[in-house]
């Protein structure tokens, strides 16, 4: 069910949400090995996140260029929870502006995607060009003989749509409300840029399709999930049962200098493919009778110049880049209040893929997504966390694995990437 369907545990039914009154938001004095529950449940903290993170000096994913290839193409999108329109002008430049008419505030762009010559608000037919500039105001000079109309000093230039800064990097479009945020390459940093480029640089993407879901949990839980290699073989028994995580895989948990971005990376040993029989003795959870009837979809086609067969990137504050063997996609996080997050998944391949490669990607896609062998379990776990933190008398969680390591680690039994994320978060949020 959606979070709004909750019968037991309606928003506001727990003191831990800290509605009304004043609450002194102090991080536990023990430091980063503890995470206070109120970061997931407090509407005040959520508001501060929107102001300081999503509307602050960050780059937010809004679109893939492959979604809006032609002049006049547009899509609805979001920066944080704020609706925006991404549009390609006739000169091929890309623009992002608020999805809100300058007149009375109508969210005028209703179709998910499309192609237009101008944007028209249906209420009073105010029109905007593909850059968000106000063009037409019907009856601007009133009606002859009747008067009315806009004041003489009304200028269209003063009443355009709020525009965001745009950065385009290898076919990925980012937007920011901030004038101060550093250029996108610097924002990502070299460690993250490296694996980002493996997926996107020099590639023409071919869209394969969309998934969308609402997870009844705080948006930060999704980031944590992909900075948490610890759960991989424990939650996702599919991985061990069917030989996807093999003894001898190399792993790495990579963070950027700020600690807010990360890459979970792993590499299958060269000759694994589906030759599980060779290593079965090393895998405690492997069972002879647990065999895939059609193991094609676990094959790894070596198409990347990278030591890793899997890179899952978390790019703060709203993007996940998925390279899981040969299934590729981006996940766009839209926070929806403290207890809910919406995810837009865009799955893709490359223009150079032949039909068999495309089909391989589609088959392998069964691993991920809201019905994925791995994907659905994360969604379930996140729901359980949100329910637990909202309703329990205890008020904090612990991240002690790896002691006080921060950021990049080689061990997967280490929560250093989560600690690094919250070190950065505390600084941004003044906690």
């Amino acid at each position, binding site marked *: 069910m959606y979070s709004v369907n909750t019968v037991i545990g309606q928003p506001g039914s727990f003191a831990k949400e800290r509605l009304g009154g004043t609450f002194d938001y102090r991080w536990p004095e023990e430091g980063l090995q503890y995470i206070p529950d109120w970061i997931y449940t407090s509407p005040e903290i959520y508001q501060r996140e929107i102001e300081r993170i999503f509307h602050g000096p960050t780059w937010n994913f809004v679109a893939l260029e492959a979604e809006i290839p032609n002049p006049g193409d547009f899509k609805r999108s979001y920066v944080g929870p704020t609706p925006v329109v991404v549009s390609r002008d006739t000169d091929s430049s890309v623009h992002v502006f608020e999805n809100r008419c300058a007149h009375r505030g109508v969210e005028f762009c209703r179709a998910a995607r499309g192609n237009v010559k101008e944007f028209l608000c249906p209420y009073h037919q105010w029109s905007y060009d593909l850059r968000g500039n106000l063009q037409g105001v019907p009856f601007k000079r009133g009606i002859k003989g009747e008067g009315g109309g806009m004041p003489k000093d009304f200028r269209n230039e003063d009443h355009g749509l709020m525009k965001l800064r745009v950065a385009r990097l290898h076919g990925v479009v980012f937007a920011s409300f901030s004038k101060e945020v550093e250029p996108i390459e610097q924002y990502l940093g070299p460690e993250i840029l490296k694996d980002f480029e493996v997926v996107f640089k020099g590639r023409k993407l071919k869209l*394969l399709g969309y*998934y969308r879901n609402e997870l009844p949990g705080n948006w930060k839980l999704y980031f944590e999930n992909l900075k948490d290699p610890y759960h991989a073989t424990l939650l996702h028994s599919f991985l061990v049962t069917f030989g996807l995580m093999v003894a001898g895989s190399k792993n790495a948990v990579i963070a950027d200098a700020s600690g807010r971005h990360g890459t979970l990376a792993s590499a299958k040993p060269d000759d694994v493919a589906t030759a599980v029989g060779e290593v079965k003795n090393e895998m405690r959870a492997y069972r002879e009778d647990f065999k895939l009837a059609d193991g094609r979809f676990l094959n790894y086609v070596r198409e990347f110049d990278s030591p890793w067969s899997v890179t899952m990137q978390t790019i703060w504050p709203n993007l996940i880049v998925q390279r899981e063997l040969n299934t590729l996609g981006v996940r766009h996080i839209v926070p929806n209040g403290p207890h809910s997050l919406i995810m837009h998944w865009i799955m893709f391949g490359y223009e150079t893929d032949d039909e068999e490669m495309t089909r391989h990607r589609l088959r392998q896609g*069964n691993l991920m997504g809201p*019905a994925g062998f791995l994907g659905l379990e994360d969604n379930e776990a996140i729901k359980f966390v949100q329910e637990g933190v909202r309703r329990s008398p205890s008020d904090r969680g612990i991240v002690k694995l790896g002691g006080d390591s921060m950021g990049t680690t080689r061990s997967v039994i280490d929560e250093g990437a989560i600690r690094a994320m919250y070190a950065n978060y505390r600084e941004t949020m003044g906690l």
Partner: protein
Amino acid sequence: MYPGYDMPPADPRATRELRMEIEEFHADYCWTLDCGDIERWPDYFTDDAVYRITARENADAGLPVGLVYADSKAMIRDRAFALKHTQMYAPRSLQHFVTNVRVLEANDQHIKAQSNYLLLQTLVEGPTTIHQSGRYYDTFVRVNGRLLLKERQCVYDTVLIANDLVLPV
């Protein structure tokens, strides 16, 4: 509309009995899923079956991705097996409803039909909700007198999924 299923329906008078047979198939299929007998679910398909669940926005745009994507009975069996033996998910109760069956085409090769489906889900301490609403685009073949699915495209209207889709439709 779905490519390959956009013909006008067959004359209902000529296909009345076939429609009833298809409805009986649906009732049996739904019962298997509702009972949680997931390992019997593959029995409804041919060896070379195609089974895809995808959002209406993908079908309308001709995009090939599947929320679930299987192009062999073996893949269908693997999903059933994984759901039974490896997947972690909160306990739930499901009720599948299939209605509005229209026979589109019936010949020696195959039978094409289209119907609507509704999936109601109840989680522990939760209300019963409409988890997914969609359309089936089905191609049946007869194997030893029995109807089996050679293709089932499940195109859902509920584009924004409530968390996840655990069990198939």
